């Protein structure tokens, strides 16, 4: 249990997706102008990462991993080079499904962040979640915890940046720095803060 908790914390804080691993920065910078849209993006990230990482674990270990076809008498078959296409397909389908379910059962939530749900298909952080899962050979439980944890880390970071940027609307910045420039520098400052989590250790 402690190990899973440690993994959760490290996924959310130590290996924070946008701030230490530079993943998903395009949407991170584009949708953080207002806190409301930033929180919507964060919630969508938690949902999509929490679903796709375990789902891709099942697909990778059931179909693609070396030796997965041992039961069919083909233990030498190694389809892992196909994992990229399989993962992208799963992510695109999940995002589509999530959008349809939200639209059907929770129309208010769908209206709140429906417009940028399809964008999540091409979010590098989501694909990276699945790739890291393979790279670090997580178990199924670990991959679920990792997915939710890194989604939460992303949500925290984007909500914080959204809050700071909405205050900056009234700041008198140099012309060239306004907008994208200051957002990147702010992200750097937050990343400096998150770097201190690197020393974090979980006590029993």
């Amino acid at each position: 249990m402690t190990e899973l908790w440690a993994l959760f914390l490290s996924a959310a804080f130590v290996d924070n997706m946008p701030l230490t691993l530079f993943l998903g920065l395009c949407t991170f910078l584009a949708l953080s102008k207002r806190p409301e849209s930033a929180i919507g993006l964060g919630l969508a990230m938690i949902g999509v990462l929490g679903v796709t990482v375990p789902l891709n674990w099942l697909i990778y270990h059931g179909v693609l991993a070396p030796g997965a076809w041992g039961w069919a008498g083909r233990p030498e078959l190694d389809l892992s080079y196909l994992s990229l296409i399989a993962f992208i397909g799963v992510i695109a389908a999940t995002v589509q499904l999530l959008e349809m379910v939200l639209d059907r059962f929770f129309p208010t939530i769908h209206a709140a962040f429906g417009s940028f749900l399809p964008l999540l298909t091409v979010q590098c952080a989501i694909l990276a979640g699945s790739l890291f899962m393979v790279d670090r050979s997580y178990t199924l439980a670990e991959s679920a915890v990792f997915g939710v944890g890194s989604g939460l880390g992303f949500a925290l970071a984007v909500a914080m940046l959204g809050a700071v940027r909405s205050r900056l609307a009234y700041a008198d910045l140099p012309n060239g720095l306004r907008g994208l420039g200051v957002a990147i520098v702010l992200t750097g400052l937050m990343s400096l803060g998150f770097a201190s989590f690197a020393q974090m250790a979980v006590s029993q």
Partner: protein
Amino acid sequence: MGQRVDIIGTLTAPLIRQNPVTLQILGICSALAVTTSLATAVTMSVSLTVVLTLSAVIISLIRRHLPDTIRLIVQIVMVASLVIVIDQVLQAYFSEISRDLSIYVSLITTNCLVLGRTEAFARHNPPLPAAVDAFGNGLGYSVILIVLGGIRELFGRGQLFGWQVLPLADAGGWFSPLSLMLLAPSAFFLLGGVVWAVRSVLPEQAEAPEHVPPATVRAAE
């Protein structure tokens, strides 16, 4: 003749003026992650330019046969297949660099730059201009990556392409490396600085202020 001028314009515009990273906010993720050394930055630039150009040509060739509703899926599968080829080539011939880049080569698939250019340009244009536009954008991306990678490697380790340029203090020289340069925050600061510099030189790129102080206050004083 007009065609030729147009092609040169398409090729050079993304280098600085329409730079994909600093103006269009495309492909920032990989631009920051792989710039701890010049060698990985160059490898990443070449891989991205190849994928971008090939996918732009392919999409532009089938642009009349591609139904609008499924075009995103088709584009992504196309890009993913190209990325798998590049990844296998890198693993086979440059295994050391491939290990340094880890998952970031695979992440070219979801690099917004590739999808952004195929969506915005290749889908509506014949193969030659599409290829030129993609190649130009690839070069613009490479310029940013190489500048960032050069600065970070030079000041972080005193090296360029692994060669010791500045003699280290440990080895009897005078340069003590700034290890902050190799960490995540400095990548953000440097990119922010580059954006600031580009936008100061080209003021028309600066974003309009969100909030303009009311002029009446000053008038009332």
